[in-house]
């Protein structure tokens, strides 16, 4: 510490007890530290320490899964911020949207990013799925992870669809009406579906009634979709994402499988 100059400050910081307690390995870029950078970090350790050059190329994996997951992070972040301004009641919902557009600082871009991000995520899930199919990555031992992926696709649809109602404009209410009207035609449990009359399904006791909390899209529907959109579906999706990532590590990345050399 005798010759403390500006030049030495970075080194003093990196070698201090505080720094070393946070970052267990040294910062020097030798091979050992690069491995430790992955294994010693709670966020990075879901990644393997080494990946094949072949599987690392963008033209193999298209970055589709990475982008899908990142969009989910963006949607969680912007969604939580939107929750500060949005109240899911019929008298307020639409005017909260107007406030976001015109009053809240950066409210418009917050809302736009959430909406477009949601569309992009639905699309990227499909792209990721296509890539997985064309590289045969669903074949043994990765069968179950493909199934988890289909479940994730399903919950992405549900998340996007439940969020579609929340702006409470004409687009929202009628798009959800169109979607929910399909539910009343479910065989057995929708009142217009086949066999439903055999077990006494009516407009006020079928699956559509349960979904909407009434016979038409109304205040109960808004609250239901809000809770599903902000709490139930994201938690379920997160659980399946955890399983999905875990299985990629357990079953091995298909890009690492040696191709005919």
């Amino acid at each position, binding site marked *: 510490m005798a010759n403390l100059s500006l030049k030495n400050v970075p080194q003093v910081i990196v070698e201090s007890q505080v720094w070393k307690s946070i970052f267990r390995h040294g910062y020097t870029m030798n091979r050992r530290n690069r491995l430790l950078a992955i294994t010693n970090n709670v966020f990075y350790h879901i990644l393997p320490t080494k990946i094949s050059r072949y*599987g690392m190329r963008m033209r193999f994996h298209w970055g589709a899964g990475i982008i899908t997951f990142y969009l989910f992070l963006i949607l969680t972040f912007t969604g939580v911020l939107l929750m500060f301004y949005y109240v899911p009641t019929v008298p307020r919902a639409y005017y909260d949207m107007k406030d976001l557009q015109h009053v809240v600082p950066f409210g418009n871009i917050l809302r736009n990013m959430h909406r*477009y991000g949601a569309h992009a995520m639905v699309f990227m899930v499909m792209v990721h799925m*296509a890539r997985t199919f064309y*590289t045969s990555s669903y074949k043994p*031992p990765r069968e179950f992870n493909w199934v988890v992926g289909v479940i994730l696709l*399903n919950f992405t649809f549900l998340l996007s669809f439940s969020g579609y109602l929340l702006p409470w*404009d004409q687009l929202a209410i009628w798009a959800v009406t169109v979607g929910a009207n399909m539910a009343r035609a479910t065989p057995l449990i929708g009142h217009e579906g086949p*066999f439903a009359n055999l077990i006494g399904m009516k407009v006020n006791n079928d699956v559509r009634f349960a979904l909407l909390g009434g016979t038409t899209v109304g205040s109960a529907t808004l609250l239901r979709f809000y809770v599903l959109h902000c709490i139930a579906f994201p938690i379920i999706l997160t659980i399946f994402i955890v399983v999905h990532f875990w299985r990629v590590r357990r079953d091995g990345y298909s890009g690492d499988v040696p191709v005919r050399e």
Partner: protein
Amino acid sequence: MATTEQSGKSGQAARRPARAVPTASSERFELTWPYFMYTIVICFLLTTIVLWLWSMVVPAPLEPIADPNKTPNPSKAPWYFVGLQELLVYFDPWIAGVVLPGLILGGLMAIPYIDKNTHGIGEYNYKDRKFAVWVFSLGTVFWFLLIIIGYFFRGPSWQWYWPWESWEIHKESHVVTHNWSLLGGSLFLIGYTAIGLVLPVAIPYLIGSRVKPGSWIKKCCEVLQEFYEKRGATIYAIEMLLLLAMLGIPVKMVLRLFFNVKYILEIPAINLNI
């Protein structure tokens, strides 16, 4: 104890024939930090930039406040469901909105268990899995085609409007549709399923031995026979039923558009219309 361990290990090895174990000396492998981190960071940055610019330039739509008394014509579902909405022209809601989405999701989940072909893991391989690639690509293209039709080419009353046509001009459908009789409809459905299931198996057994080797008919027979024998009865049946359900959609579309058939099979007593 040793034997169980042994068999467990060999079983796993058989299950993962080509699993690579990264070794420190391996030339094929590269460190995740920093090389794969670059990819992740670039993907994150580009996504952020694109999404940010998109959000800055194009304002998200916000229509007038929800009014249950004013139904817009047309009311369209979100884009990813518009393909299913387009199917409502050809099917009752219980098929277009419940059965077909269920079959799509169920069929997708079933793919790894009915595709027994072990070729092509970790590579873009068309040569060794032509059938799988064709079926998946057809389904995907068809799915997006329906979305594009529903999103861009459907106007008021779900009539066909070219993008340059005004929605102010009201179109009405004057097509008179009809239903097939109970007997005809049942026979058609049973016939479609039975022929689709049986014919690919029957052809090679019936005429395979009678044609001279080397002819194209003989080659077709061999391909069909191999197709069936690779799968076995159960997987063949599941796979063909899913395929027939997928191909049934364009079949019904053709019947509806060119022959004005509303329902192939109609049983009003239990709301069952196909």
